[in-house]
């Protein structure tokens, strides 16, 4: 009797969770289905299956939406900021964590405050103009790097205490310079946290559109997300093409999520739980 109620309870639980899954997945499935329809069938953006598969939507979008160019832009912004961000943040976190002087503790706290603080985009314009970074790709790369620093320092700082200090001392005795010691001995040991930080920041920068919205006026420098939005403005009536564009833009992030899920979830939760 008791076993029976438990079984039916589990059945209901499974049913509920599958309904939740469905609510999450329907918008994604909808985009996938419609990316394969023709212009007329996709105009209502319904769940009906395509009468014929139109894979050419994807090639059309790549050509018409100039996707290749915006793909390279996104890669440049997200890729370069991740590389710079991880290197700068781990160097900073390493010294701040190893030498916990009063001053360094203050600097750590000061940097970590940036996780919550909102960015003042308006006055940032002034800085961008003074430093001649306005409307330039390098400006976006540097901005993304700067925005990543607080969270990256926070996550890496927590991890560095697990790297034994003996290694540093052994390196010093062997006459390593601090830079050499860090890059040849310590940094390789930070790989797990560096991968987590790198993946999170890559996805964050890839998905961001606010920064280019403020600081890039020329469409040829736009990243993929902004290019999709612009494409939607031009081809509102052709949902098949818009859907194909959406898929191509989201694909890199989804692939990274599927491959690096373990790192991403652990990074996003461990950071907050320990916080």
């Amino acid at each position: 009797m008791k076993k029976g109620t438990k079984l039916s309870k589990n059945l209901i639980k499974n049913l509920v969770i599958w309904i939740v899954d469905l609510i999450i997945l329907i918008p994604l499935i909808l985009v996938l289905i419609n990316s394969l329809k023709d212009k007329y069938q996709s105009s209502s953006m319904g769940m009906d299956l395509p009468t014929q598969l139109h894979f050419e939507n994807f090639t059309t979008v790549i050509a018409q939406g100039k996707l290749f160019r915006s793909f390279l832009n996104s890669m440049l912004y997200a890729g370069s900021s991740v590389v710079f961000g991880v290197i700068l943040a781990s160097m900073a976190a390493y010294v701040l964590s190893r030498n916990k002087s009063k001053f360094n503790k203050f600097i750590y706290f000061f940097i970590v405050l940036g996780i919550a603080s909102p960015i003042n985009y308006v006055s940032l314009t002034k800085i961008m103009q003074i430093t001649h970074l306005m409307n330039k790709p390098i400006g976006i790369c540097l901005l993304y790097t700067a925005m990543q620093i607080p969270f990256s320092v926070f996550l890496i700082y927590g991890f560095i205490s697990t790297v034994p200090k003996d290694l540093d001392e052994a390196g010093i005795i062997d006459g390593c310079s601090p830079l050499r010691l860090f890059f040849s001995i310590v940094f390789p040991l930070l790989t797990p946290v560096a991968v987590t930080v790198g993946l999170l920041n890559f996805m964050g920068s890839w998905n961001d559109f606010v920064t280019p919205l403020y600081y890039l006026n020329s469409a040829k420098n736009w990243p993929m997300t902004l290019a999709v939005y612009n494409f939607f403005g031009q081809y509102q009536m052709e949902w098949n093409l818009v859907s194909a564009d959406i898929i191509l833009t989201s694909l890199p992030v989804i692939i990274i999520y599927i491959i690096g899920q373990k790192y991403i979830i652990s990074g996003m939760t461990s950071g907050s739980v320990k916080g």
Partner: protein
Amino acid sequence: MTKKQYPFYFVLGALALYLLLFVIPGVMGVYYSFTDWSSYSNDIHFIGLDNFKTIFSSGENYLSYIKNTIGFTIVTSILKTVLGIAFALLLSEGIKGKNFHRAVIFMPAILSMLITGLVFKSILNPSTGLLNETLTKVGLGSLAQQWLTNVKIAFYTIMAVDTWKGMGYIMTIIMAGLQSIPRSYYEAADIDGSNSFEKFRFITLPLLMPSITVTTVLNLIYGLKVFDVVYALTNGGPGYATEVLYTSVFKEFSLGRYGIGTALSSILLLFVVIVGFFAIKLLSREDVEL
């Protein structure tokens, strides 16, 4: 010795970028809040509290943006927390393929809000959208709405879409918190003859408090800074019904009214500082109790 071994120049790169592109604009912004800085003139004059007077005067809409921002923050925080806890509990036992479900529910968190917004705009389209069409098909046509253009409903629609996107992240953090509760507590409660509600009320909930505090802080800070979902779905419309602080900052920026823009941004900063202050207090108290 440690000074030589751990030189401060390691910190300089990160610190310099952070100061230049994050802290200095923030501090400058507070100063510019008290000026008439705009794109129309090259001169910037100190005008005292005039921008704030404008923002808080009843003749303007700014107060409603502040109200909207706070309303959005509170409602989405509650929704995400309640649903996050509910789904985390649901997944905690008797479910096959737990990791698969978690991965699915978490997935929207990694997608671009601008793109998600486009898809939802289509789904919520009053005449051709999937939602109204489905409602009509199953005989609930009376529930069909002008989801994004009705002044009374649009803001709730935005909150719902935001919850759809953000609840998986909160659920994942709660799941990690659930795992840290020892099984033996529940076994002891079983022996005492407690029912499931009592177990939830007296074991799960109190021991989840640290995780809930963290997710609440995350939700509050995210909510106050919200921009993407509003921009993508309604861009503040219909009228000003769904305008929030960060979208109005962008509008002032586009209009070249930088003074008001920074003043609004400074108000946002103040809110976040208040939340941050209580967060630090709460979190440090939690540590002592555990």
